[in-house]
């Protein structure tokens, strides 16, 4: 049982609400006194994940477990899945449509950013069923 267990629904196709979950987690970590670097890493990784779910998967769910030495983030969607995960992890690779690019996203940096800012990142994806991204940030590790 974690110190703090949080659950969020990430609405699909609504860019105006993307960032609510990561913003709330950031706020809570701040109040709990986590160091700024760890808060920043969690917030960036989670926001990129939220944006991915909005762009590609019609939304999804985020579950966050907060402990003193570990922030555990689980993002689950029932979108189209990722056919080639290793390709999707390459910086610059993107399948985002033009309207998303005009908003300032879709440059193929989301997944690489998520990996860069976390201490552990695992992707499980089944085409036609959905994608699960598990990320862990250990405060005091890595650093940006």
């Amino acid at each position, binding site marked *: 049982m974690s110190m703090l267990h949080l659950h969020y629904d990430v609405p699909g196709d609504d860019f105006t609400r993307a960032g609510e979950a*990561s913003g709330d987690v950031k706020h809570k970590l701040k109040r709990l006194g986590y160091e700024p670097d760890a808060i920043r890493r969690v917030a960036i990784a989670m926001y990129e994940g939220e944006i991915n779910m909005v762009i590609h998967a019609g939304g999804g769910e985020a579950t966050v477990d907060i402990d003193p030495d570990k922030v555990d983030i689980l993002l689950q969607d029932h979108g189209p899945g990722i056919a080639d995960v290793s390709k999707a992890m390459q910086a610059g690779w993107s399948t985002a449509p033009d309207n998303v690019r005009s908003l*300032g996203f879709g440059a193929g*940096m989301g997944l690489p950013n998520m990996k860069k800012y976390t201490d552990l990142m695992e992707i499980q994806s089944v085409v036609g069923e959905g994608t699960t991204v598990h990320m862990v940030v250990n405060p005091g590790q890595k650093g940006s």
Partner: protein
Amino acid sequence: MTIQEMAAACGWRLLAGEEGTGAQVEGCYIGDLLSWVMARAISGNVWLTVMGNVNAIAVAALTDVAGIVLCEDAALDEAARARAELQGIPVYTCPANLYETALQVAGQLHG
């Protein structure tokens, strides 16, 4: 120097987020690609961009930048204005381009 003081010196006009205008400016970041900015802008930067959408406000909040300056009179959309107000993120506008605005910032920070 606060972003409010810098804005007054540079002639930027406040569009939203007055509550946050006491934030200290310690540097500058320039960019429009949000994933790029999110990974590189740091706390205390004044962020120069032309992206005036709600996601830009979210990126500003997540990175703790001092505020946003929308250069070349780039528009701030209504959802973004509301979010900036709610989160107290100062958003300014100015007619100068990114380079000219960066020079203004440098002049203020480094005299």
